Structure formats: C-alpha cells, structure tokens
C-alpha cells in the first residue's frame, strides 16, 4: 500500500525525490532540502496520503561522509494506516547545516526539532523557539555527534557573562506572546 506513496511522490515531485527504496518492509524516500516543506505539506494534506502524524524526527551522523548528516522524518497516516520515512541530507559546514522547520505542519515538530538541534546541532530555520531541551543552556557542543567523545565530562558552570539573576525562562515568559498583545 505504501508503495503508492513512493510512486505518488516520484510522480509529483520528480527530481526533488533523490532516491526511493524499501528495506525490511519500511518505505524510504530521500528528499532534496529545497522541496522538503512542499513534500511534507503534500503528504499531510493530500487525501490519498493523509499523514496526520509526525511520529518521530531524528538525525543520523555519518561522520567522514559527505553530506554528513541525515535528518529522518517518520510519518504515519491514521486513516490510511501507512507509513513512510523521509530523509534529507545536510552538509557539515555551519552555514549549510540546516533544514526548514516543520513546526507549521505538526505540533510534534516543535520539541522534536529542539531535540535534534540540541543533540546534533542541525539548525531548523524558522523554528519559533530554538533552545536546548535535554542538555543545559551552558553545555558546549552537541553530544550525539560522532566526534563528541562518549566519556567527555562538562561540569555545569554558569556563563561568565550571565548576571546572578539571569534566567532565560523568566525572560521568555516575560515577553511571551499574550503579554505582548494584551499590552
């Protein structure tokens, strides 16, 4: 059934679908970054696709390969009961290490993208709240990258430039949306 998803994607987006394939029963498509949001929107909104749920989002680090990172989206359709896995290749260079955000399509993308940024350092352009989520703010680096040593230790130290009462959360809540609009 899900074969039809891959066929539909190839027919509709042509060159933007770099590769499709099946492995142990999982359907996989590699998508060009430029067309990612268009592909995701199509998969969510098209009545034959109806991928209402972004099940999971993660990153795989293939160190010493180009491109180095692979952002992986697992989608599931509750009504059609099919699944597909989308992948986007991302380069290592800091200015190239980004993908467009999917927060406009699924609520689930918000925290999942924060986690991917936190642990792998892949930026999600347009994300409304790009903060670390599992690690602490003072942490340096991205721990799940393959070149981050497993036994590295980082003591929790306050940033030298932080004032004693500086709390990112307090600032966040103080200028949060409904306070700004209510004046």
């Amino acid at each position: 059934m899900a074969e039809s998803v891959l066929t539909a994607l190839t027919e509709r987006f042509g060159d933007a679908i770099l590769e499709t394939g099946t492995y142990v029963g999982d359907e996989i498509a590699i998508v060009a970054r430029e067309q990612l949001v268009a592909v995701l929107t199509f998969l969510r909104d098209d009545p034959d696709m109806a991928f209402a749920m972004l099940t999971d989002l993660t990153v795989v680090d293939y160190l010493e390969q180009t491109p180095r990172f692979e952002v992986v989206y697992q989608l599931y359709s509750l009504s059609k009961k099919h699944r597909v896995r989308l992948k986007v290749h991302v380069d290592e260079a800091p200015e190239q290490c980004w993908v467009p955000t999917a927060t406009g399509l699924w609520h689930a993308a918000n925290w999942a993208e924060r986690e991917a940024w936190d642990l792998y350092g892949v930026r999600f352009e347009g994300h409304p709240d790009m903060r670390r989520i599992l690690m602490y703010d003072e942490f340096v680096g991205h721990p799940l990258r393959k070149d981050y040593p497993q036994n590295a230790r980082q003591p929790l130290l306050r940033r030298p430039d932080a004032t004693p009462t500086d709390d990112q959360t307090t600032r966040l809540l103080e200028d949060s949306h409904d306070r700004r609009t209510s004046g």
Partner: protein
Amino acid sequence: MVATSHKDATVSGHKDVPGAAPVAHSLADTFEPSGRQAGENRLSPSMEAFAEQARRLPTDEVIINMGPSHPAMHGTVRVVLRIDGETIKDADVQIGYLHRGFEKESENATYNQIFPYVDRLNYVSPMLNNVGYAMAVEKLLGITERIPERAEYIRVIAGELARVCDHLTCIVASLAELGGFTAFFYGIRAREHFWELLEDISGARMTHSYCRIGGVAWDLTEDFIPKCREKITKVRKLIDDTRTLVERNRIFLDRMEGVGTLSGEDAVSYGITGPVLRASGVDYDVRKDKPYSVYDHFDFAIPIADGGDNLARYLVRIEEMEQSMQIIEQAMVQIPPGAVIINDPAIALPAKREVYNSIEGMIAHFKHVMDGLRVPPGEAYSFTEAGNGELGFYIVSDGTGRPFKCRCRPPSFYTTAALRQLIVGANLADVVPIFGGINMIGGECDR
C-alpha cells in the same frame, strides 16, 4: 373520578400557579458563591471598608516554579508558570533532568547489552520496552518469523502484566495527589501482586532484562500459570475496590471532569499516542492497527473515550487494564510448549552446559559477549504499543556488533510536549491532575 393523591395535587398545584415562589431544589441554591447565606450580610461596616480596599489593591502576575523535584511531579520535570491569581497565563515546560545519554551509550554497547538500558527508559513497565527493542533488532536481522511461538506468548503475558502495572501506577499516584491516599495503597498492593509474578519470571522485581534477541532468557516457572490466575482474581478485586472508592466521589469528579481537555486533532498533531490519544476519541492502538507478535490470536477490545479530559484518560486506562488481563487469560490457555529462544548459534547464546563442556560452546559464548551478534548493515523502524503509546526503535546498523544509531521514539516525550497547551488557562492546582493523567515517565522522556 379525579382521585389524585394529596402529594400529586400539591405538585401540580405549584406548577399551575404562575409566579409562584420558586422552591430551592438543593441546599446549594440557598448559598451565594461567596459563602454568605442568601440575603444575609455578615460583614460589619469596618470590614466592608476593608474588603473594598482589598478589591482596589494592585494585582500583578507572578512567575513561579513547579519542580524539578516537586512531590507532585512524578518525573523530574520543571514547569515555570506565569500566573494571574489562580489562573495560568503561560507556562514553560522544561525537561532533561533525567537525561542519561541512552543513545550515546547504546552506540558503544553490543545489541544484547542494551537490554538493561531500555529497562531504565520506562522503569514502570520495563518488560514492554524489552519487547519493543528486541523486535526492532529482530526486524533488522529478518528473523521476526522465526521466533518460537512460546517465546512470543511469554512476551505477551509479561508485557501485558507490565501494562497493567504501568496504568495502575499512573492512576493511583494521581489519586494520591488528589487526596485519595487509600486508593493509592489499594493500587500499589495490586501492582505488587503483578511485580511478584514478574519477579518469578525474570528474577528481578523492577528492571527485568528478561528478553533476548530471538526470544526470552528462560522459560516460565512451573507454577506460573496457576499463580497468575490467582493473582489476576486478586488484582481485579483491588481495582474494583479502588473504583468504588473514587468514582462517585465529588472531589474526584470535580477535578477530573472537563479538566485538561485535548481535542483529537491536536492530539494527533502533537504525535500523542496511547491512552491519552484514545481518551481524545482517536482509535489508534498498534496492537490492533498492525498486530505484531501474536496479538492477532486474542479477542480483545480497544477502549475509546471522547471526553479528552482527565476523567476520560482515567476511564480508558481502567478499561485497558481489564482488557490486558483478558489477553493474559487467553494467552495462558493458548500457550504452546516448545523452545523459548531461536535455535541459531549466530543469534542466541549457547546453553551453559555447552559453554562449560565444549570448546565450540566456549568460543561461541566468548564471541557473543565480546563482539556481540552481527547485524547486517541497514536500518529499521519498529514500533510496539507500550504503556504510554507507540514505543518506536529506529536502529541503524553498519554491520558490526554494535548499533551505529539506536534511537528510541519515546511516547512520553511527545505527550509532555502538549502539557503547555493543556495547562494554560487552567487553575494552578489543576497542573497536578493533568500532569498525573498524561503519565510522563522521566526516564523515557529524557532518555
């Protein structure tokens, strides 16, 4: 001819007279919300002036912290709240206090060494995590069809026992936080019965590490089935007792009904699965949608509630426990005899008898422990229904004995992401039952 009784006459008389003085239907009608009796003014003039002054006092919003180690936040999670009086205006949910680097550790462990790590993801129902992880590796190895049937049945029995424990913990911990401490003891006693069974199976009370790739570690004990039947009877009684205690309780209903409402569309968009999704009226359970293991051999139902509130989540969990126990009862009748682990020296550890008595057995054992079993290069996403919803494992293998990447898709993570939406607009005190109802498990959320 119109021989009505005295009572009837009075009632109809009242109804017929227009403009008759309304009769208070309950005691509540005679009270104002302020606590004063209707028509009565208890405040003296000086107190009235004071009350007027108090009304004109300037008010301001306050930012307060709940957690990370607040007695009502079962996981270590921090919620920073901006409140106006009792109403929550905005919230920031911060997780990560239990982050232990599950994925990083897994990348440096052999496939079988990861079982203890997955135990500690959801430490309330470790058996279900064991099964979920084992199935992911088996999918990658392509041996899903070759798992002995007895092993599958044992996994189902152990997994469903764990599911009941998970739901029980969630429900009675929330009840304790709402003040129903007796219910907590009833529920914990019920959970203890099942933990005893799981201890009989695995040797450990909580972190079992009982599954192996290709089956389970060893067979059930001889007296397991009669003992399990006896325990199920006891647990049913205890669950009934718990329900009798709370379900007609005014405090319980006031704090559960209509609190923390989540619509089905939002729940799907948040990626929420499991009891929380089904309490919002969406019919999705991996055991029915894509039956894995031997779940298609059993007759069971998936409870759905359409309230989307705390009460709906409670009711879904209560019914799921009953369905789980019915699955266990059917499995105990159907379970076939036979091996409990795949007969393949490349995957299963050799029997201890061979290890100690033959050089081949010793070498096989050594290779397994030091190098780990070899998984062909590739990737697989496998998903099962855990206590809180779809538990997925996305494993990428590079052909060595250790996973290149071992990602756990934690159901709690996505549920907790919706917590902000659930509590904004609610009362401060409602954070506790809402948080209890979504059953966030810190170990799984933060990994």
